[in-house]
């Protein structure tokens, strides 16, 4: 399977840089997701890899070969779109065997290939149906089988699950990863859905405004995001605004706007530095002392209660309570909140302000 390298890939439209100097190396057989909000340049980038667009600057290497001028049909890529693009007048089998047919494989081999991939996506029993007779999830599985049947070694998935219902999407993302891993394909998957990205990927590249914010494994991006934008975009988080008050014995003490303090693991910032603490709701817990806060509302999430509170320091603080403990909190209640020191990440306070730094659109 090919290794993919992007070197300073840039796409300009007049003055606008839709993709701005993106570097990325995808290993043989790796599943990488490009994640970002609408308009971040992720779809442009995957089209550049596919060869649908030529970048204005930079290089795309696939399997050790520079791709400038190489058309999509010679790049050996399978491409699956958000909007299912099956041939409506062909049945499922003929849709899937389309690639082998174009390559002039013998008829028996065409059928064999189609059946092999239909079995993999669990659609063997529907191969005589037409696309309109399938539901959305099945149509998308057929699209995937068709892309795989071309014999492509590099799979490009452009929002492959976005058009589907939430529940179908969840089942299909586990299935999707299983299938491409079984075949050992190198995969690039584009999505705006951070939950989907975490479930399917070996690594995630977070994009914003054409540029790369950071790249890491789902675990790295969730537990130790380097950028405050990632902290908020990949999973939910609380952002507490303050200053470094002191440092000692591997700990930093952060003072919030009302003078209350939060202890975090030594963060490398100097005393007096303006900082933001990011801590996820599952790592904030009510205690006998801590940040004085008032509960605003409580929501049942099935296996836990999500409690949203406003702290005296005027930060919004959300915390989770296991459902098994019962509904312990109600609107207007006073609580004291502690932060799990080791789960907190500290960022320099962004010059443009926190809201601007984590803005989702």
């Amino acid at each position, binding site marked *: 399977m090919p290794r993919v390298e992007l070197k300073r890939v840039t796409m300009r439209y007049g003055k606008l840089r839709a993709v701005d100097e993106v570097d990325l190396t995808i290993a043989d057989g790796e599943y990488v997701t490009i994640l970002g*909000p*609408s308009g971040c340049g992720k779809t442009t980038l995957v089209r550049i890899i596919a060869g649908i667009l030529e970048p204005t600057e930079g290089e795309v290497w696939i399997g050790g070969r520079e791709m400038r001028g190489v058309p999509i049909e010679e790049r050996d890529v399978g491409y699956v779109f958000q909007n299912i693009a099956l041939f409506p007048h062909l049945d499922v089998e003929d849709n899937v065997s389309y690639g082998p047919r174009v390559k002039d494989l013998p008829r028996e081999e065409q059928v064999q290939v189609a059946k092999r991939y239909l079995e993999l996506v669990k659609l063997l029993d529907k191969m005589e149906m037409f696309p309109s007779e399938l*539901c*959305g*999830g*099945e149509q998308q599985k057929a699209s995937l089988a068709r892309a795989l049947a071309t014999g492509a070694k590099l799979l490009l998935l452009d929002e492959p699950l976005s058009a589907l*219902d*939430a*529940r*179908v999407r*969840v*089942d299909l993302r*586990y299935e999707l*990863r*299983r299938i491409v891993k079984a075949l050992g394909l190198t995969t690039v998957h584009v*999505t*705006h*859905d*951070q*939950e*989907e990205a*975490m*479930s399917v990927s070996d690594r995630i590249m977070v994009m914003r405004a054409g540029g790369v914010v950071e790249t890491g*494994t*789902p*675990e790295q991006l*969730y*537990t130790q995001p380097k950028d405050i934008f990632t902290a908020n*975009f*990949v*999973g*939910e988080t609380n952002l507490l605004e303050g200053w470094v008050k002191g440092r000692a014995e591997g700990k930093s003490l952060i003072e919030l706007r009302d003078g209350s303090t939060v202890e975090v693991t030594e963060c490398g910032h100097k005393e007096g530095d303006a900082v933001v603490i990011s801590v*996820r*709701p*599952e790592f904030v817990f009510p205690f006998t002392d801590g940040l004085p806060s008032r509960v605003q*509302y409580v*929501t*049942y*999430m*099935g*296996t836990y209660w*999500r409690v*949203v509170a406003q702290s005296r320091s005027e930060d919004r603080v959300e915390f*989770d309570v296991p459902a098994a403990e019962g509904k312990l909190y109600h609107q207007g209640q006073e609580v004291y909140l502690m932060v799990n020191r080791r789960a907190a990440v500290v960022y320099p306070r962004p010059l443009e302000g926190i809201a601007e730094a984590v803005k*989702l*659109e």
Partner: protein
Amino acid sequence: MPTIKLEGIGKRYGDIKAADGLDLEVRNGEYLCLLGPTGAGKTTALRIISGLTKPDKGRITFDDKFMNEEEPENRRAVMLSQTYALFPQLTVAKNILFGPDIRDVPDELKKRTLAEMLDLVRLAHRPGAYPKELSGGMQQRTALARALASGADVLLLDEPLRALDARLRISLRQELRSLVKSLGITTIHVTHDHDEALVMADRIAVIHGGKIIQVGSPAEVFDNPISPFVANFVGQSNFFVGKVGAKREATEVRGENGRSVMAQPCSCREGESVVVAVKVGNTEISKEGEGFFEGRVERILFEGRNLHIDLEVGGLGHFAAKVPSWRLGKLSMGDKVQIRWSAEKASVFPVPPGGLEEELRVE
């Protein structure tokens, strides 16, 4: 704000029954989520309430007043479509005042309505902007303001967050709910996203095949699903098929191969074939102790707050569990683990007539 009642509503499109004896009551000022898969009849139900679609049979009442023959404009029930349908050539202000403009509302009142609405949806700084100049979230708020400015008593939201990015959708859930609740309007929100319904609804009505199959608070629907379909649609579930054994404070269900599990008390008979459903988030796994049966860890996916664990159980097929992500590193592929759950988290159902697989189909 009215209480809305639908009784025995039927609506056919050719061979398709979009509503098939649909009963639903939406209380005064309530935020109700109508939750179901594509094709369940969600949008049809909304259109019937709004008056845009006439049912073939059944009764619609608003506060006991018979509404079947009432024109849409007399129902004061306004629908917000998932694509917002803003007028591209009109500014935010003109879009919001579209309703009042055609009703010839006096200028003074229009001015006040506009100011109130812009304030409510936090667009006071953008009244002169055109829709294409706005972000998706702002367009959504403009559409909401336009719906509210028409003086609606009933708000019908057809997948109002669908057009937005996943992360933005999550952060706007509470905002949309709070805004609507602050006005006290009776609201019906259609969605296929069970997390969205759990977070936003006072009550959830699960719709499937043109019928309402369960209505209850988010906790009721999640914890006490009425059927295997609901168990698996409102959060993923694991299933165990067997026969009812001993019944005491909990029900024992015995599968083939001599394995047995515990579940909630049920009205089933001893020896009856049943299906046990338990949410993946309530399925516990551990390397020590004794579970109902043993499984092998096939795959571990890091999903943020949770790990998703796929398990293979000899003779029973696949199970899944969600465990807090701090357990990463404490579990490895190939590990043998004990699988169990608390009896009160597991529901018991008769075996569905068409088979379990058919029952669980979500599209």
